[in-house]
């Protein structure tokens, strides 16, 4: 028997009376998992607000959010793979799903949702694929031939761009976006159920958990889309300024569109934030009021050991501060961007406080466990379940988005009224 490795021993600091087998088994990757699925679901809901409910003001954001949600999609499974002790068995739940388990249907829910997002994007961009294919037809060179081939595959052989066909596309998008909302909410509410149904964990067990997760998911999704949108638009403005000078009309147009979209999107962000915070506070108040057996230890964790994490970082800096930043005063791009980043941080801290906070106390209710995030990895486990593993997960969607954007432009295409294209 060689290569002995006690999972959790390296990053768990125990205090007072804990059982010998207790460690932080669900570490930073399980914080990343609901965070990433939340972003996926949130981005999709944002795009659906336009496609289904016809919120015209979100039109520019909608397409962007949709492509971004596709970029986030594969990343939602990454933290799970990095967390599994047997990652090569990751598909076993698909082979022998044990449906009494909340995790068993993850693959099914996830792939259903993935198919919806993919087909919706296909319907939104089909005309574009055909246009690109036709435009590249006469051109020579290996790169053009390859691009043409890619677009030919993307069209799936549907080259009909007649008015009737395009109308059908629109109808399909609407239906898919409509079906997508409940599925996206289910995907994430489901992540909440995974935690909320663990009866052994006093902090997690709550029927409110799925709803809380959905609301904070939408909040984080909108915030991330807004931040990314701002960064890209600022970059475009910068490019236009470089090319044509500060006073150029295109710079003004870009700036105008940006401010407009951001102002409208932040209204939705505020609405969902109110819902998310109310539910979380309701949960907290209810626990304190009913004061069940576990309340003593929960209180000592929430108001004592994790006070900074919960009340300062999550509720203070992550919720209240950005809430008032968005609510009060004039909307400026910089202020909104900072507020959105704070919101993203707040939602991350909420996930952290649920996942890590739920393991901060022993099942004996008489001891504590502290999670020491591994920073410098010295083996594969401390990489996977450490800072760099989490960062890998956080960076990947942007890399995927960059590649996706080459073929499925999230911004330039179809912004009627203000065509910002420089191609």
């Amino acid at each position, binding site marked *: *028997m060689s*290569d*002995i*490795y*006690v*999972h*959790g*021993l390296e990053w768990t600091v125990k205090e*007072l*009376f804990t*059982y*010998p*087998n*207790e*460690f932080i*088994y*669900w570490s930073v990757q399980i914080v990343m998992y609901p965070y990433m699925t939340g972003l996926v679901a949130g981005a999709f809901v944002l795009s659906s607000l336009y496609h289904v409910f016809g919120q015209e003001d979100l039109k520019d954001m909608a397409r962007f959010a949709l492509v971004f949600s596709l970029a986030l999609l594969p990343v939602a499974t990454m933290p*799970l793979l990095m*967390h*599994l*002790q*047997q990652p090569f*068995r*990751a598909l*076993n*739940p698909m*082979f*022998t*799903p*044990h449906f*009494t*388990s*909340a*995790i*068993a249907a*993850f693959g099914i829910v996830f792939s259903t949702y993935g198919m919806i997002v993919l087909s919706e994007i296909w319907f939104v961009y089909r005309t574009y694929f055909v246009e690109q294919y036709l435009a590249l037809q006469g051109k020579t060179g290996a790169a053009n031939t390859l691009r043409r081939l890619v677009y030919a595959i993307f069209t799936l*052989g549907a080259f009909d761009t007649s008015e009737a066909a395009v109308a059908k596309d629109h109808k399909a998008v609407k239906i898919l976006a409509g079906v997508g909302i409940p599925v996206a909410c289910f995907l994430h509410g489901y992540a909440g159920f*995974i935690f909320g*149904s*663990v*009866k*052994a*964990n006093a902090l997690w067990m709550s029927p409110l958990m799925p709803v809380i997760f959905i609301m904070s998911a939408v909040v984080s999704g909108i915030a991330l889309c807004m931040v990314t949108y701002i960064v890209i638009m600022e970059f475009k403005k910068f490019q236009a300024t470089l090319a044509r000078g500060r006073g150029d009309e295109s710079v003004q147009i870009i700036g105008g569109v940006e401010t407009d979209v951001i102002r409208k999107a932040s209204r939705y962000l505020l609405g969902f934030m109110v819902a998310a915070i109310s539910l979380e506070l309701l949960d907290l108040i209810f626990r304190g009021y009913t004061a069940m*057996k576990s309340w003593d230890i929960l209180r000592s964790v929430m108001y004592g050991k994790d006070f900074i994490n919960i009340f300062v970082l999550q509720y203070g800096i992550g919720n209240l501060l950005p809430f008032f930043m968005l609510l009060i005063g004039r909307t400026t791009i910089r202020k909104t961007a900072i507020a959105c980043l704070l919101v993203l941080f707040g939602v991350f801290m909420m996930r952290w406080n649920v996942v890590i906070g739920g393991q901060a106390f*022993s*099942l*004996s*209710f*008489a001891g504590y466990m502290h999670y020491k995030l591994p920073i410098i990895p010295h083996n594969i486990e401390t990489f996977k379940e450490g800072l760099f593993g989490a960062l890998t997960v956080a960076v990947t969607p942007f890399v995927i988005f960059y590649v996706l954007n080459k073929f499925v432009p999230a911004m330039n295409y179809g912004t009627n009224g203000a065509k910002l294209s420089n191609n």
Partner: protein
Amino acid sequence: MSCSRRDFLRRSIKGGIAASLPLSAFKFLSPAQAKSLVRESGLRWVFLVDTTKCVGCGLCVKACKLENEVPYDVPVTRTWVERYVVTKDGKFHADSPMGGRDGFTEQKIDEQEIPPEEIAKAFFVPKLCNQCENPACVQVCPVGATFQTPEGVVLVDRTWCIGCAYCIMACPYGARFFHPVYRVAEKCTFCYHRISKGMKTACVQACPFGARQIGNFKDENDPVTKTILTQRVAVLKDEYGTKPQVYYIGLDSNVR
């Protein structure tokens, strides 16, 4: 033969439905239905711990680790012994260093020296998997790698466990952990490989004081069954609805 895409899709759907009809002739059984078709086992393993007999020597933990190949020098263990010290002010102190493997030779509990004159009572509580009648760990396993045998023992299939730790999270007793070598969920099996051959579990055999006993609850002449039925026994954490099957004599309200 011409076949437009629309026709192709239409035929595929029809074909799919036609093919699935014969499949519906098969009946899907719920786990409970399937279980009832299997011959009812005449066995239900239960465990009896007499805490009044335990002296905290740790021989059971040693024997378990050796028998079940859980690395000796790691804190994780299939069975462990807890020490409780209740002081005269009503407060309790507890510990289980290395699962109590080496006995309790230190006076200190959690770095804290408790003067003997302040102690109101002190006792040891051996713990192991409760082999629950309604096991939360089996419920949450996404792949069915952990299961309950007809004799009531919960086992783990090491070749199929994906190592997600959901079962570890779901167990209110902290009985589960990751095996340091196989990297899959690990737990006490009541020494299934031994009891199935008519032997005692390693811990029962190692206990010099008879604090641990294993029996068949379906055999009314079994001494363990008799004790459980006729004496005042208790189980741990019954509020979780798991219906634990390890019974304790002399349990205290301080026991966690």
